[in-house]
Protein backbone atom coordinates (compact mmCIF):
# COMPACT_ATOMS: atom_id res chain seq x y z
CA UNK A 1 0.00 0.00 0.00
CA UNK A 2 2.80 2.36 0.93
CA UNK A 3 4.22 1.95 -2.57
CA UNK A 4 0.98 3.05 -4.18
CA UNK A 5 0.81 6.06 -1.89
CA UNK A 6 4.39 6.98 -2.69
CA UNK A 7 3.64 6.64 -6.40
CA UNK A 8 0.55 8.85 -6.13
CA UNK A 9 2.58 11.37 -4.10
CA UNK A 10 5.34 11.49 -6.73
CA UNK A 11 2.82 11.93 -9.55
CA UNK A 12 1.11 14.70 -7.59
CA UNK A 13 4.42 16.53 -7.04
CA UNK A 14 5.13 16.19 -10.75
CA UNK A 15 1.78 17.66 -11.76
CA UNK A 16 2.20 20.44 -9.19
CA UNK A 17 5.58 21.37 -10.63
CA UNK A 18 4.25 21.26 -14.19
CA UNK A 19 1.25 23.43 -13.44
CA UNK A 20 2.57 26.00 -11.00
CA UNK A 21 6.28 26.40 -11.62
CA UNK A 22 7.36 29.14 -14.00
CA UNK A 23 10.89 27.94 -14.55
CA UNK A 24 10.95 25.57 -17.51
CA UNK A 25 13.77 23.45 -16.08
CA UNK A 26 11.69 22.91 -12.95
CA UNK A 27 8.83 21.85 -15.19
CA UNK A 28 11.06 19.24 -16.78
CA UNK A 29 12.06 18.07 -13.30
CA UNK A 30 8.35 17.76 -12.59
CA UNK A 31 7.91 15.65 -15.70
CA UNK A 32 10.71 13.41 -14.66
CA UNK A 33 9.29 13.03 -11.14
CA UNK A 34 5.94 12.13 -12.60
CA UNK A 35 7.63 9.52 -14.73
CA UNK A 36 9.27 8.01 -11.66
CA UNK A 37 5.88 7.96 -9.96
CA UNK A 38 4.35 6.04 -12.84
CA UNK A 39 7.29 3.64 -12.84
CA UNK A 40 6.87 3.02 -9.13
CA UNK A 41 3.16 2.40 -9.68
CA UNK A 42 3.92 -0.15 -12.38
CA UNK A 43 6.56 -1.93 -10.30
CA UNK A 44 4.37 -2.12 -7.22
CA UNK A 45 1.57 -3.70 -9.28
CA UNK A 46 3.70 -6.78 -9.76
CA UNK A 47 5.40 -6.80 -6.36
CA UNK A 48 4.80 -9.53 -3.80
CA UNK A 49 6.09 -9.13 -0.25
CA UNK A 50 9.07 -11.41 0.12
CA UNK A 51 8.92 -12.55 -3.51
CA UNK A 52 12.06 -13.47 -5.40
CA UNK A 53 13.30 -12.70 -8.86
CA UNK A 54 11.29 -14.46 -11.61
CA UNK A 55 13.92 -17.07 -12.40
CA UNK A 56 12.46 -20.53 -12.08
CA UNK A 57 15.29 -22.43 -10.33
CA UNK A 58 14.80 -25.54 -8.27
CA UNK A 59 12.31 -25.10 -5.49
CA UNK A 60 10.95 -21.69 -6.54
CA UNK A 61 7.20 -21.90 -6.96
CA UNK A 62 5.45 -19.64 -9.50
CA UNK A 63 3.44 -17.89 -6.78
CA UNK A 64 6.61 -16.88 -4.94
CA UNK A 65 8.07 -14.77 -7.72
CA UNK A 66 7.24 -11.16 -8.52
CA UNK A 67 5.50 -10.39 -11.82
CA UNK A 68 8.26 -9.84 -14.40
CA UNK A 69 6.10 -8.02 -16.96
CA UNK A 70 5.84 -4.65 -15.16
CA UNK A 71 9.61 -4.70 -14.76
CA UNK A 72 10.02 -5.03 -18.51
CA UNK A 73 7.55 -2.17 -18.98
CA UNK A 74 9.39 0.04 -16.50
CA UNK A 75 12.71 -0.67 -18.19
CA UNK A 76 11.20 0.53 -21.47
CA UNK A 77 9.62 3.56 -19.86
CA UNK A 78 12.85 4.56 -18.12
CA UNK A 79 14.59 4.68 -21.50
CA UNK A 80 11.73 6.71 -23.01
CA UNK A 81 11.78 9.05 -20.01
CA UNK A 82 15.50 9.68 -20.36
CA UNK A 83 15.20 10.54 -24.03
CA UNK A 84 12.22 12.83 -23.47
CA UNK A 85 14.04 14.64 -20.65
CA UNK A 86 17.18 15.04 -22.76
CA UNK A 87 15.17 16.34 -25.70
CA UNK A 88 13.20 18.73 -23.48
CA UNK A 89 16.37 20.15 -21.95
CA UNK A 90 17.94 20.66 -25.36
CA UNK A 91 14.81 22.44 -26.57
CA UNK A 92 14.96 24.64 -23.46
CA UNK A 93 18.52 25.61 -24.41
CA UNK A 94 17.19 26.77 -27.76
CA UNK A 95 14.29 28.61 -26.14
CA UNK A 96 16.81 30.38 -23.92
CA UNK A 97 18.87 31.39 -26.95
CA UNK A 98 15.85 33.11 -28.51
CA UNK A 99 14.06 34.54 -25.49
CA UNK A 100 16.93 35.01 -22.99
CA UNK A 101 14.70 33.73 -20.22
CA UNK A 102 13.60 30.48 -18.64
CA UNK A 103 10.33 31.92 -17.38
CA UNK A 104 7.52 30.15 -19.19
CA UNK A 105 5.23 33.18 -18.81
CA UNK A 106 7.53 35.28 -20.96
CA UNK A 107 7.79 32.70 -23.74
CA UNK A 108 4.45 33.63 -25.18
CA UNK A 109 4.54 35.17 -28.63
CA UNK A 110 1.73 33.04 -29.93
CA UNK A 111 -1.78 33.38 -28.64
CA UNK A 112 -5.10 31.67 -29.33
Amino acid at each position, binding site marked *: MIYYMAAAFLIAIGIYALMLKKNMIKMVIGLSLMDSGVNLLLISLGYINGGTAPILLNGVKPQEVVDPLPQALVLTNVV*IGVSVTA*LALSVIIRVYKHYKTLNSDKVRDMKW
Partner: protein
Amino acid sequence: MVNIDPTLMIGIPLFMGFLIPSVAIVWKNSPRYLAGFTILFNLIASTLLLIRSLNAPVISVLGGWQPPYGIVFVAGPLGSMLALLISSMTMLTWFYLPPHIKEGNETKFYMLFILLMAGATGMVLTGDLFNLFVFTEITSIASFSLLAYSRGKDEKEAVEATIKYMIIGSLSSAFFLIGIALLYGATGTLNMADLASKIPSANHNLVMMALAMIITGLGIEAEMFPLNGWTPDAYTGATHPVSVMFASVVVKAGFFALIRVVFLIFGAATEALQILMIFGLLTLFVGESSALRQTDLKRMLAYSSIGQMGLLLVAFSLNNQTALVGGLYAMLNHAIAKGLLFMAAGSFIFALGTRDISALNGMGKRMPVTSALFTIGAFSIMGLPFFGGFISKIVIIAGSMQAGTEGMLVAILILSASLIELVYFLRVVHRIWMREPEDDSRLKEAPFTQMFPMIVLAAFVFLMGIYPQAFFKVLIPAAQELLRGLGTMIGGA
Protein backbone atom coordinates in the same frame (compact mmCIF):
# COMPACT_ATOMS: atom_id res chain seq x y z
CA MET B 1 1.05 -13.27 -53.98
CA VAL B 2 4.02 -12.00 -52.00
CA ASN B 3 3.35 -11.72 -48.33
CA ILE B 4 5.23 -9.08 -46.40
CA ASP B 5 5.17 -9.48 -42.66
CA PRO B 6 3.69 -6.31 -41.05
CA THR B 7 6.58 -6.36 -38.58
CA LEU B 8 8.90 -5.36 -41.42
CA MET B 9 6.91 -2.16 -41.85
CA ILE B 10 8.32 -1.12 -38.48
CA GLY B 11 11.63 -2.94 -38.67
CA ILE B 12 12.85 -1.61 -42.01
CA PRO B 13 12.22 2.10 -41.19
CA LEU B 14 13.86 1.69 -37.77
CA PHE B 15 16.86 -0.02 -39.33
CA MET B 16 17.09 2.64 -42.04
CA GLY B 17 16.85 5.31 -39.35
CA PHE B 18 20.11 3.99 -37.98
CA LEU B 19 21.62 3.42 -41.39
CA ILE B 20 20.94 6.89 -42.83
CA PRO B 21 23.46 8.87 -40.72
CA SER B 22 26.23 6.34 -41.31
CA VAL B 23 25.76 6.18 -45.08
CA ALA B 24 25.51 9.98 -45.17
CA ILE B 25 29.14 10.22 -44.07
CA VAL B 26 30.24 8.49 -47.28
CA TRP B 27 27.55 9.63 -49.70
CA LYS B 28 26.22 13.05 -48.89
CA ASN B 29 22.99 12.95 -50.91
CA SER B 30 21.96 9.49 -49.77
CA PRO B 31 19.48 10.37 -46.95
CA ARG B 32 16.79 11.52 -49.35
CA TYR B 33 17.00 8.40 -51.52
CA LEU B 34 17.29 5.98 -48.61
CA ALA B 35 14.27 7.56 -46.94
CA GLY B 36 12.35 7.48 -50.22
CA PHE B 37 13.20 3.82 -50.67
CA THR B 38 12.02 3.01 -47.15
CA ILE B 39 8.74 4.85 -47.61
CA LEU B 40 8.19 3.10 -50.94
CA PHE B 41 8.73 -0.24 -49.23
CA ASN B 42 6.13 0.63 -46.60
CA LEU B 43 3.74 1.81 -49.29
CA ILE B 44 3.98 -1.51 -51.15
CA ALA B 45 3.82 -3.54 -47.94
CA SER B 46 0.74 -1.73 -46.69
CA THR B 47 -1.04 -2.09 -50.05
CA LEU B 48 -0.43 -5.84 -49.99
CA LEU B 49 -1.49 -5.94 -46.35
CA LEU B 50 -4.76 -4.17 -47.11
CA ILE B 51 -5.58 -6.65 -49.88
CA ARG B 52 -4.83 -9.58 -47.58
CA SER B 53 -6.67 -8.21 -44.58
CA LEU B 54 -9.91 -7.73 -46.52
CA ASN B 55 -10.26 -11.54 -46.52
CA ALA B 56 -9.08 -12.26 -43.01
CA PRO B 57 -7.23 -10.22 -40.37
CA VAL B 58 -3.47 -10.62 -40.61
CA ILE B 59 -1.91 -11.55 -37.31
CA SER B 60 1.81 -11.50 -36.78
CA VAL B 61 3.28 -12.81 -33.55
CA LEU B 62 6.51 -11.16 -32.45
CA GLY B 63 9.45 -13.04 -30.99
CA GLY B 64 7.72 -16.41 -30.78
CA TRP B 65 5.74 -15.56 -27.64
CA GLN B 66 2.16 -16.54 -28.21
CA PRO B 67 -0.58 -14.05 -27.33
CA PRO B 68 -1.82 -13.03 -24.81
CA TYR B 69 1.71 -13.10 -23.34
CA GLY B 70 3.69 -11.83 -26.30
CA ILE B 71 3.18 -8.82 -28.52
CA VAL B 72 1.06 -9.27 -31.64
CA PHE B 73 0.45 -7.12 -34.66
CA VAL B 74 -3.19 -7.31 -35.68
CA ALA B 75 -4.00 -5.84 -39.08
CA GLY B 76 -7.69 -5.82 -39.87
CA PRO B 77 -9.14 -3.80 -42.77
CA LEU B 78 -9.18 -0.68 -40.59
CA GLY B 79 -5.60 -0.90 -39.37
CA SER B 80 -4.19 -1.70 -42.78
CA MET B 81 -6.25 1.05 -44.41
CA LEU B 82 -4.70 3.55 -42.00
CA ALA B 83 -1.25 2.07 -42.52
CA LEU B 84 -1.75 2.61 -46.25
CA LEU B 85 -2.95 6.16 -45.62
CA ILE B 86 0.09 6.87 -43.45
CA SER B 87 2.62 5.49 -45.90
CA SER B 88 1.05 7.15 -48.94
CA MET B 89 0.82 10.54 -47.22
CA THR B 90 4.44 10.16 -46.13
CA MET B 91 5.43 9.29 -49.69
CA LEU B 92 3.64 12.35 -51.10
CA THR B 93 5.14 14.59 -48.43
CA TRP B 94 8.55 13.16 -49.34
CA PHE B 95 8.02 14.50 -52.88
CA TYR B 96 7.01 17.84 -51.44
CA LEU B 97 10.08 18.25 -49.21
CA PRO B 98 13.05 19.59 -51.21
CA PRO B 99 12.90 23.41 -51.25
CA HIS B 100 11.64 23.54 -47.70
CA ILE B 101 14.39 21.65 -45.94
CA LYS B 102 17.43 22.96 -47.73
CA GLU B 103 18.69 24.79 -44.69
CA GLY B 104 19.68 22.83 -41.60
CA ASN B 105 20.69 19.24 -41.37
CA GLU B 106 19.11 17.05 -44.03
CA THR B 107 20.34 13.76 -42.58
CA LYS B 108 18.62 14.25 -39.25
CA PHE B 109 15.44 15.41 -40.92
CA TYR B 110 15.07 12.29 -43.07
CA MET B 111 15.96 10.06 -40.15
CA LEU B 112 13.21 11.57 -37.99
CA PHE B 113 10.85 11.63 -40.95
CA ILE B 114 10.89 7.86 -41.43
CA LEU B 115 10.88 7.28 -37.67
CA LEU B 116 7.68 9.30 -37.54
CA MET B 117 6.19 7.05 -40.21
CA ALA B 118 7.35 3.92 -38.38
CA GLY B 119 5.85 5.11 -35.11
CA ALA B 120 2.52 6.02 -36.65
CA THR B 121 2.34 2.72 -38.56
CA GLY B 122 3.08 0.86 -35.33
CA MET B 123 0.31 2.75 -33.56
CA VAL B 124 -2.30 1.56 -36.04
CA LEU B 125 -1.07 -2.04 -36.31
CA THR B 126 -0.15 -3.13 -32.82
CA GLY B 127 -2.44 -5.34 -30.78
CA ASP B 128 -0.79 -4.72 -27.44
CA LEU B 129 -1.58 -1.80 -25.18
CA PHE B 130 1.92 -1.13 -23.86
CA ASN B 131 3.30 -1.49 -27.37
CA LEU B 132 0.79 1.17 -28.40
CA PHE B 133 2.28 3.42 -25.71
CA VAL B 134 5.81 2.81 -27.00
CA PHE B 135 4.82 3.63 -30.58
CA THR B 136 2.96 6.71 -29.40
CA GLU B 137 6.17 7.83 -27.74
CA ILE B 138 8.24 7.14 -30.88
CA THR B 139 5.77 9.21 -32.88
CA SER B 140 5.72 12.03 -30.32
CA ILE B 141 9.49 12.23 -29.94
CA ALA B 142 9.91 12.27 -33.71
CA SER B 143 7.28 14.99 -34.05
CA PHE B 144 8.78 17.13 -31.27
CA SER B 145 12.12 17.00 -33.03
CA LEU B 146 10.66 17.65 -36.48
CA LEU B 147 8.74 20.60 -35.10
CA ALA B 148 11.96 22.09 -33.69
CA TYR B 149 13.60 21.66 -37.10
CA SER B 150 12.47 25.06 -38.47
CA ARG B 151 15.32 27.46 -39.07
CA GLY B 152 15.51 31.12 -39.96
CA LYS B 153 12.47 33.36 -39.66
CA ASP B 154 10.15 30.79 -38.10
CA GLU B 155 12.69 29.42 -35.69
CA LYS B 156 11.60 31.44 -32.66
CA GLU B 157 7.99 30.40 -33.03
CA ALA B 158 8.97 26.81 -33.70
CA VAL B 159 10.97 26.43 -30.49
CA GLU B 160 8.17 28.01 -28.49
CA ALA B 161 5.67 25.62 -30.04
CA THR B 162 8.03 22.71 -29.42
CA ILE B 163 8.40 23.36 -25.72
CA LYS B 164 4.62 23.71 -25.34
CA TYR B 165 3.97 20.56 -27.32
CA MET B 166 6.68 18.65 -25.46
CA ILE B 167 5.42 19.48 -22.00
CA ILE B 168 1.81 18.79 -22.85
CA GLY B 169 2.72 15.69 -24.87
CA SER B 170 4.85 14.21 -22.10
CA LEU B 171 2.08 14.88 -19.61
CA SER B 172 -0.32 13.08 -21.92
CA SER B 173 1.93 10.05 -22.20
CA ALA B 174 2.30 9.92 -18.42
CA PHE B 175 -1.50 9.84 -18.09
CA PHE B 176 -1.74 7.19 -20.78
CA LEU B 177 0.80 5.05 -18.94
CA ILE B 178 -1.03 5.45 -15.62
CA GLY B 179 -4.16 4.26 -17.42
CA ILE B 180 -2.28 1.25 -18.78
CA ALA B 181 -0.89 0.46 -15.33
CA LEU B 182 -4.37 0.59 -13.80
CA LEU B 183 -5.77 -1.65 -16.51
CA TYR B 184 -2.94 -4.11 -16.00
CA GLY B 185 -3.62 -4.06 -12.28
CA ALA B 186 -7.31 -4.73 -12.87
CA THR B 187 -7.02 -7.47 -15.48
CA GLY B 188 -3.45 -8.77 -15.53
CA THR B 189 -3.06 -8.57 -19.29
CA LEU B 190 -2.00 -6.07 -21.92
CA ASN B 191 -3.15 -7.80 -25.09
CA MET B 192 -6.04 -5.73 -26.47
CA ALA B 193 -8.21 -8.68 -27.42
CA ASP B 194 -7.57 -10.41 -24.11
CA LEU B 195 -8.35 -7.17 -22.28
CA ALA B 196 -11.65 -6.88 -24.11
CA SER B 197 -12.73 -10.28 -22.82
CA LYS B 198 -11.49 -9.72 -19.24
CA ILE B 199 -12.76 -6.18 -18.64
CA PRO B 200 -16.41 -7.12 -17.94
CA SER B 201 -15.32 -9.18 -14.92
CA ALA B 202 -12.80 -6.62 -13.63
CA ASN B 203 -13.26 -3.97 -10.94
CA HIS B 204 -15.55 -1.43 -12.60
CA ASN B 205 -14.26 1.67 -10.80
CA LEU B 206 -10.65 0.88 -11.58
CA VAL B 207 -11.50 0.29 -15.24
CA MET B 208 -13.41 3.57 -15.50
CA MET B 209 -10.51 5.44 -13.92
CA ALA B 210 -8.15 3.82 -16.39
CA LEU B 211 -10.47 4.80 -19.23
CA ALA B 212 -10.50 8.42 -18.06
CA MET B 213 -6.69 8.45 -17.88
CA ILE B 214 -6.35 6.92 -21.35
CA ILE B 215 -8.88 9.32 -22.91
CA THR B 216 -7.00 12.25 -21.38
CA GLY B 217 -3.68 10.90 -22.61
CA LEU B 218 -4.72 10.10 -26.15
CA GLY B 219 -7.12 13.03 -26.39
CA ILE B 220 -4.10 15.33 -26.41
CA GLU B 221 -2.70 13.57 -29.46
CA ALA B 222 -6.13 13.59 -31.11
CA GLU B 223 -6.58 17.36 -30.63
CA MET B 224 -9.60 16.95 -28.37
CA PHE B 225 -10.81 20.15 -26.72
CA PRO B 226 -9.71 21.34 -24.10
CA LEU B 227 -6.47 19.42 -24.54
CA ASN B 228 -5.50 20.95 -27.88
CA GLY B 229 -3.66 24.10 -26.82
CA TRP B 230 -0.52 22.85 -28.56
CA THR B 231 -2.12 22.34 -31.96
CA PRO B 232 -2.32 25.82 -33.53
CA ASP B 233 1.18 26.76 -32.36
CA ALA B 234 2.65 23.50 -33.59
CA TYR B 235 1.04 23.78 -37.03
CA THR B 236 2.07 27.40 -37.39
CA GLY B 237 5.63 26.98 -36.20
CA ALA B 238 6.44 23.81 -38.12
CA THR B 239 8.03 23.78 -41.58
CA HIS B 240 5.30 23.30 -44.20
CA PRO B 241 5.87 19.60 -44.94
CA VAL B 242 5.93 18.89 -41.21
CA SER B 243 2.54 20.60 -40.84
CA VAL B 244 1.26 18.25 -43.55
CA MET B 245 2.60 15.28 -41.61
CA PHE B 246 0.96 16.50 -38.40
CA ALA B 247 -2.43 16.98 -40.00
CA SER B 248 -2.50 13.80 -42.05
CA VAL B 249 -0.42 11.32 -40.09
CA VAL B 250 0.30 12.11 -36.44
CA VAL B 251 -3.15 13.29 -35.47
CA LYS B 252 -4.87 10.55 -37.45
CA ALA B 253 -2.79 7.88 -35.74
CA GLY B 254 -3.51 9.42 -32.33
CA PHE B 255 -7.19 9.62 -33.07
CA PHE B 256 -7.26 6.05 -34.27
CA ALA B 257 -5.51 4.90 -31.09
CA LEU B 258 -8.16 6.73 -29.05
CA ILE B 259 -11.17 5.22 -30.80
CA ARG B 260 -9.54 1.81 -30.85
CA VAL B 261 -9.05 1.83 -27.11
CA VAL B 262 -12.59 3.04 -26.53
CA PHE B 263 -14.26 0.71 -29.01
CA LEU B 264 -12.21 -2.43 -28.91
CA ILE B 265 -11.09 -2.61 -25.33
CA PHE B 266 -13.99 -1.04 -23.57
CA GLY B 267 -16.57 -2.44 -25.97
CA ALA B 268 -17.84 1.05 -26.74
CA ALA B 269 -18.57 1.86 -23.10
CA THR B 270 -21.63 4.08 -23.25
CA GLU B 271 -20.36 6.47 -20.57
CA ALA B 272 -17.20 7.02 -22.56
CA LEU B 273 -19.13 7.64 -25.76
CA GLN B 274 -21.34 10.26 -24.15
CA ILE B 275 -18.28 12.08 -22.86
CA LEU B 276 -16.65 11.84 -26.27
CA MET B 277 -19.80 13.16 -27.94
CA ILE B 278 -19.86 16.25 -25.73
CA PHE B 279 -16.14 16.86 -26.13
CA GLY B 280 -16.47 16.25 -29.85
CA LEU B 281 -19.18 18.89 -30.24
CA LEU B 282 -17.18 21.33 -28.11
CA THR B 283 -14.05 20.65 -30.17
CA LEU B 284 -16.03 21.17 -33.36
CA PHE B 285 -17.40 24.54 -32.32
CA VAL B 286 -14.33 25.89 -30.58
CA GLY B 287 -12.17 24.87 -33.54
CA GLU B 288 -14.42 26.32 -36.22
CA SER B 289 -15.20 29.55 -34.41
CA SER B 290 -11.53 30.16 -33.61
CA ALA B 291 -10.68 29.52 -37.25
CA LEU B 292 -13.17 32.23 -38.18
CA ARG B 293 -11.15 35.01 -36.57
CA GLN B 294 -7.65 34.05 -37.71
CA THR B 295 -5.59 36.28 -39.94
CA ASP B 296 -2.80 33.76 -40.32
CA LEU B 297 -3.33 31.21 -43.09
CA LYS B 298 -1.67 28.23 -41.40
CA ARG B 299 -3.26 29.01 -38.07
CA MET B 300 -6.67 29.10 -39.72
CA LEU B 301 -6.02 25.69 -41.26
CA ALA B 302 -4.86 24.40 -37.86
CA TYR B 303 -8.09 25.47 -36.17
CA SER B 304 -10.08 24.03 -39.04
CA SER B 305 -8.22 20.80 -38.44
CA ILE B 306 -9.26 20.87 -34.77
CA GLY B 307 -12.86 21.40 -35.88
CA GLN B 308 -12.66 18.43 -38.24
CA MET B 309 -11.28 16.22 -35.47
CA GLY B 310 -14.30 17.25 -33.41
CA LEU B 311 -16.55 16.17 -36.27
CA LEU B 312 -14.77 12.81 -36.32
CA LEU B 313 -15.23 12.38 -32.56
CA VAL B 314 -18.95 13.12 -32.92
CA ALA B 315 -19.29 10.67 -35.81
CA PHE B 316 -17.58 7.87 -33.91
CA SER B 317 -19.44 8.44 -30.68
CA LEU B 318 -22.78 8.00 -32.50
CA ASN B 319 -21.83 4.32 -32.50
CA ASN B 320 -23.80 2.99 -35.45
CA GLN B 321 -22.47 1.57 -38.66
CA THR B 322 -23.53 4.41 -40.96
CA ALA B 323 -22.01 7.05 -38.73
CA LEU B 324 -18.81 5.04 -38.39
CA VAL B 325 -18.47 4.68 -42.16
CA GLY B 326 -19.07 8.43 -42.44
CA GLY B 327 -16.51 9.10 -39.74
CA LEU B 328 -13.91 6.95 -41.47
CA TYR B 329 -14.71 8.64 -44.77
CA ALA B 330 -14.29 12.04 -43.12
CA MET B 331 -11.01 10.84 -41.64
CA LEU B 332 -9.69 9.87 -45.09
CA ASN B 333 -11.04 13.04 -46.64
CA HIS B 334 -9.54 15.21 -43.96
CA ALA B 335 -6.14 13.54 -44.23
CA ILE B 336 -6.13 14.01 -48.00
CA ALA B 337 -7.75 17.44 -48.32
CA LYS B 338 -6.02 19.02 -45.32
CA GLY B 339 -2.72 17.62 -46.54
CA LEU B 340 -3.43 19.28 -49.90
CA LEU B 341 -4.38 22.56 -48.19
CA PHE B 342 -1.24 22.63 -46.08
CA MET B 343 0.89 21.86 -49.13
CA ALA B 344 -0.75 24.61 -51.20
CA ALA B 345 -0.56 27.03 -48.26
CA GLY B 346 3.10 26.10 -47.92
CA SER B 347 3.69 26.99 -51.56
CA PHE B 348 1.85 30.30 -51.17
CA ILE B 349 3.82 31.20 -48.08
CA PHE B 350 7.07 30.10 -49.70
CA ALA B 351 6.39 32.38 -52.67
CA LEU B 352 4.99 35.34 -50.73
CA GLY B 353 7.16 35.21 -47.63
CA THR B 354 4.23 35.89 -45.30
CA ARG B 355 1.50 33.85 -43.66
CA ASP B 356 -0.98 36.71 -43.65
CA ILE B 357 -4.30 35.90 -45.32
CA SER B 358 -4.64 39.47 -46.65
CA ALA B 359 -1.52 38.91 -48.78
CA LEU B 360 -3.45 36.31 -50.77
CA ASN B 361 -5.41 38.95 -52.73
CA GLY B 362 -5.56 38.02 -56.40
CA MET B 363 -3.41 34.91 -56.03
CA GLY B 364 -5.61 33.28 -58.66
CA LYS B 365 -3.90 35.48 -61.23
CA ARG B 366 -0.45 35.27 -59.72
CA MET B 367 -0.19 31.52 -59.02
CA PRO B 368 -3.13 29.96 -60.89
CA VAL B 369 -2.27 26.27 -60.51
CA THR B 370 -1.56 26.34 -56.77
CA SER B 371 -4.65 28.52 -56.24
CA ALA B 372 -6.83 26.03 -58.09
CA LEU B 373 -5.45 23.18 -55.99
CA PHE B 374 -5.99 25.13 -52.77
CA THR B 375 -9.57 25.81 -53.82
CA ILE B 376 -10.21 22.12 -54.47
CA GLY B 377 -8.96 21.26 -50.99
CA ALA B 378 -11.03 24.03 -49.41
CA PHE B 379 -14.19 22.95 -51.25
CA SER B 380 -13.72 19.40 -50.05
CA ILE B 381 -13.30 20.42 -46.40
CA MET B 382 -16.36 22.67 -46.69
CA GLY B 383 -18.35 19.75 -48.04
CA LEU B 384 -19.45 21.01 -51.44
CA PRO B 385 -20.96 18.40 -53.79
CA PHE B 386 -18.60 16.45 -56.09
CA PHE B 387 -15.89 16.57 -53.42
CA GLY B 388 -15.03 13.99 -50.77
CA GLY B 389 -16.16 16.12 -47.85
CA PHE B 390 -19.71 16.20 -49.15
CA ILE B 391 -20.10 12.43 -49.06
CA SER B 392 -18.55 12.19 -45.60
CA LYS B 393 -20.85 14.82 -44.11
CA ILE B 394 -23.94 13.34 -45.77
CA VAL B 395 -23.13 9.89 -44.42
CA ILE B 396 -22.40 11.19 -40.91
CA ILE B 397 -25.69 13.08 -40.89
CA ALA B 398 -27.53 10.01 -42.17
CA GLY B 399 -25.91 8.09 -39.31
CA SER B 400 -26.95 10.66 -36.74
CA MET B 401 -30.55 10.53 -38.00
CA GLN B 402 -30.59 6.90 -36.91
CA ALA B 403 -29.86 7.95 -33.33
CA GLY B 404 -33.31 9.39 -32.60
CA THR B 405 -34.10 12.92 -31.39
CA GLU B 406 -30.69 13.37 -29.84
CA GLY B 407 -29.24 12.52 -33.23
CA MET B 408 -31.36 15.21 -34.91
CA LEU B 409 -29.82 17.78 -32.61
CA VAL B 410 -26.36 16.46 -33.45
CA ALA B 411 -27.15 16.70 -37.17
CA ILE B 412 -28.26 20.33 -36.77
CA LEU B 413 -25.11 21.17 -34.82
CA ILE B 414 -22.91 19.53 -37.46
CA LEU B 415 -24.65 21.49 -40.20
CA SER B 416 -24.28 24.80 -38.39
CA ALA B 417 -20.60 24.09 -37.79
CA SER B 418 -20.26 23.41 -41.52
CA LEU B 419 -21.77 26.82 -42.13
CA ILE B 420 -19.02 28.48 -40.09
CA GLU B 421 -16.51 26.42 -42.05
CA LEU B 422 -18.09 27.63 -45.30
CA VAL B 423 -17.72 31.25 -44.23
CA TYR B 424 -14.04 31.27 -43.41
CA PHE B 425 -12.96 29.09 -46.31
CA LEU B 426 -15.03 31.06 -48.81
CA ARG B 427 -13.50 34.24 -47.45
CA VAL B 428 -10.04 32.96 -48.38
CA VAL B 429 -11.18 31.56 -51.72
CA HIS B 430 -12.90 34.87 -52.50
CA ARG B 431 -9.67 36.74 -51.79
CA ILE B 432 -7.73 34.39 -54.03
CA TRP B 433 -9.99 34.63 -57.07
CA MET B 434 -12.11 37.81 -56.84
CA ARG B 435 -9.91 40.50 -55.33
CA GLU B 436 -7.54 42.51 -57.47
CA PRO B 437 -3.91 41.96 -56.49
CA GLU B 438 -1.94 44.96 -55.27
CA ASP B 439 1.06 43.68 -57.14
CA ASP B 440 0.18 42.17 -60.50
CA SER B 441 3.41 40.29 -61.13
CA ARG B 442 3.27 36.53 -61.72
CA LEU B 443 4.91 34.51 -59.00
CA LYS B 444 6.91 31.42 -59.74
CA GLU B 445 4.78 28.29 -59.33
CA ALA B 446 6.12 25.48 -57.20
CA PRO B 447 8.46 23.05 -58.99
CA PHE B 448 6.99 19.89 -60.49
CA THR B 449 8.15 17.67 -57.61
CA GLN B 450 5.93 19.75 -55.33
CA MET B 451 3.11 20.06 -57.80
CA PHE B 452 2.94 16.30 -58.31
CA PRO B 453 1.81 15.34 -54.76
CA MET B 454 -0.73 18.16 -54.75
CA ILE B 455 -2.20 17.01 -58.05
CA VAL B 456 -2.40 13.42 -56.81
CA LEU B 457 -4.18 14.55 -53.65
CA ALA B 458 -6.58 16.75 -55.62
CA ALA B 459 -7.37 13.80 -57.88
CA PHE B 460 -8.17 11.71 -54.82
CA VAL B 461 -10.41 14.42 -53.44
CA PHE B 462 -12.39 14.32 -56.70
CA LEU B 463 -12.42 10.53 -56.78
CA MET B 464 -13.80 10.45 -53.24
CA GLY B 465 -16.57 12.81 -54.25
CA ILE B 466 -17.54 11.14 -57.52
CA TYR B 467 -16.99 7.47 -56.94
CA PRO B 468 -17.37 6.80 -53.19
CA GLN B 469 -18.34 3.14 -53.74
CA ALA B 470 -14.69 2.23 -54.24
CA PHE B 471 -13.84 3.53 -50.77
CA PHE B 472 -16.92 2.04 -49.13
CA LYS B 473 -15.66 -1.40 -50.14
CA VAL B 474 -12.89 -0.99 -47.58
CA LEU B 475 -14.65 1.29 -45.11
CA ILE B 476 -17.70 -0.88 -44.47
CA PRO B 477 -15.68 -3.92 -43.33
CA ALA B 478 -13.52 -1.51 -41.33
CA ALA B 479 -16.55 -0.07 -39.53
CA GLN B 480 -17.90 -3.55 -38.88
CA GLU B 481 -14.54 -4.52 -37.44
CA LEU B 482 -14.77 -1.63 -34.99
CA LEU B 483 -18.31 -2.47 -33.96
CA ARG B 484 -17.62 -6.16 -33.57
CA GLY B 485 -14.63 -5.56 -31.35
CA LEU B 486 -11.31 -7.28 -31.34
CA GLY B 487 -12.69 -10.31 -29.51
CA THR B 488 -13.25 -12.31 -32.66
CA MET B 489 -9.78 -11.84 -34.05
CA ILE B 490 -7.58 -12.61 -31.12
CA GLY B 491 -5.34 -15.09 -32.90
CA GLY B 492 -3.85 -17.92 -30.93
CA ALA B 493 -5.23 -17.05 -27.52
